């Protein structure tokens, strides 16, 4: 079940309509809990999770509809996500900067 969610979260997010409810669900996501969870439970998926998360956020912040009122939160979430994810995978920071961000 979690693997199913893992592979589909970003597909659905990238194709979704960013309603206020979805926006709030996203920016209120507890990133540290999530990263810790993947690090402990699915360590082999951590790197892919981070790449997908950052890539998805990059796509989302580039969507024009995010210039609406709530967008600063998404941008902030995007920036925080980059910092938090890099701290989980410091060795990949330069690669992430180049390819995923």
């Amino acid at each position: 079940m979690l693997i199913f969610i893992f592979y589909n979260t970003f597909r659905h997010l990238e194709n979704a309509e960013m309603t206020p409810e979805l926006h709030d669900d996203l920016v209120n996501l507890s990133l540290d809990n999530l990263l810790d969870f993947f690090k402990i439970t699915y360590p082999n998926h951590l790197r892919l999770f981070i790449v997908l998360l950052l890539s998805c956020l990059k796509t989302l912040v580039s969507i024009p509809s995010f210039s609406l009122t709530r967008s600063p939160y998404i941008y902030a979430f995007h920036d925080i996500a980059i910092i938090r994810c890099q701290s989980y995978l410091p060795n990949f920071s330069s690669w992430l900067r180049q390819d995923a961000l």
Partner: protein
Amino acid sequence: MKSVEYSDILHRETATAAFHNSKERFDPPKCHPNTRLAVLTEIMKWIKWEEGLDAFIMWVYGPAGAGKSAIAQTIADMCEEEMILLASFFFSRNDPDVNRLIATIAYQITLNLPQVRGAILGAIERDPLIFFKSLAVQFKSLIVSPLQPLAEAGFFDEPTSRRLVIIDGLDECSDPKVQKNILEVLGNAHRQHRLPLIFLFASRPEQHISLAFSTRILPSSTACIALDESYLPYDDVRLFLTDKFQEIKSTHRLRNYIPPQWPLPNVLDHLVKKSSGQFIYASTVIDYVSSIRHKPTDRLDIVLAVRPPQKDLPFAELDALYTHIFTGVEEIEPVLEILSLLLLSLTSSPLLSTIEEFLFLQPGDVELYLGDLSSLVKIGPETIKILHASLTDFLLDLTRSKEFWINPRSRHTTFARRCLQLLQRASK
């Protein structure tokens, strides 16, 4: 690294579900006995060089449900039997991953031409990351170059040599640009390296594919077969329906309630006409009528009551049947939600238990909800399979499915929220 490990790399990159004889494609659509004879004969003559048709690609195209995959499958089975099939790749809309195309063909070449196995594994040894390279590079390294010595020795000059590659459902492959790229790669390989293989493609006549066959992307030495009325599909549909109704009359558990003259000749005529020569209509009718939970005579009466809203639309008849089937569904919203998840998720066939958990349903609910759709979806012990690719087109097209339309944006939004909530819950 040993050659065993290089073959492991090749195995890992191979899409086993794409083989024509893959267990994951168990009971694939095939031409009904004694149908499609003209088109099958024409393709076989091309393969065996019987009429000197010097085309390195043959493209079989036709509308959804015309039976292209069944033809490709039948040709694959026939050529496998005659040991002239080199490789096959059947794209699936549920798994349109093109990245494994070359590896899958290369793997089959290692099996069917063992003398080339060393050269293919050698190419992987020289570049273990070959599968991260472009399609063109993979094709040259893993197929063109390894086959070159055999080609120069005249191996492929014999019409009975293993040189046929079948690629079905190119239009199911995710990105039109990639579809075009596949044809470009083949065209270039043919021009530059005198590629000794021949390729049978079967697909819908999507614009970008049609364009590739009508412009300089491909060399002029290509042949096309349009699955149109010139192949008398109505006669084939009639034969198919006649045989299947006979089968229902002799094997259905409620066969004692079926009159011997059923169905009447005018009913058969009507169904043949309504099929528009497309097997999907005929097979959908038969699946619907042969449901073991219902009287076949009642089911056929329901089918005959269908009145298409408009004439001359290519899928009007089929849409009318789909609409009719969906109209009979007792609780439509959970059914559409389940189908949305199947159509919009990345995982090709999620487990029933996963669907139920994700959609907050009780165990067994999916099977109950989809019970009315047994002629459109097959519910296995653990997974669900949508039997007709055209059902996806129907459900995602508002003008065709109307009240049964699956709005992708809205569904993606619901599912994205569900994913985030479940992730959050799991990580607490």
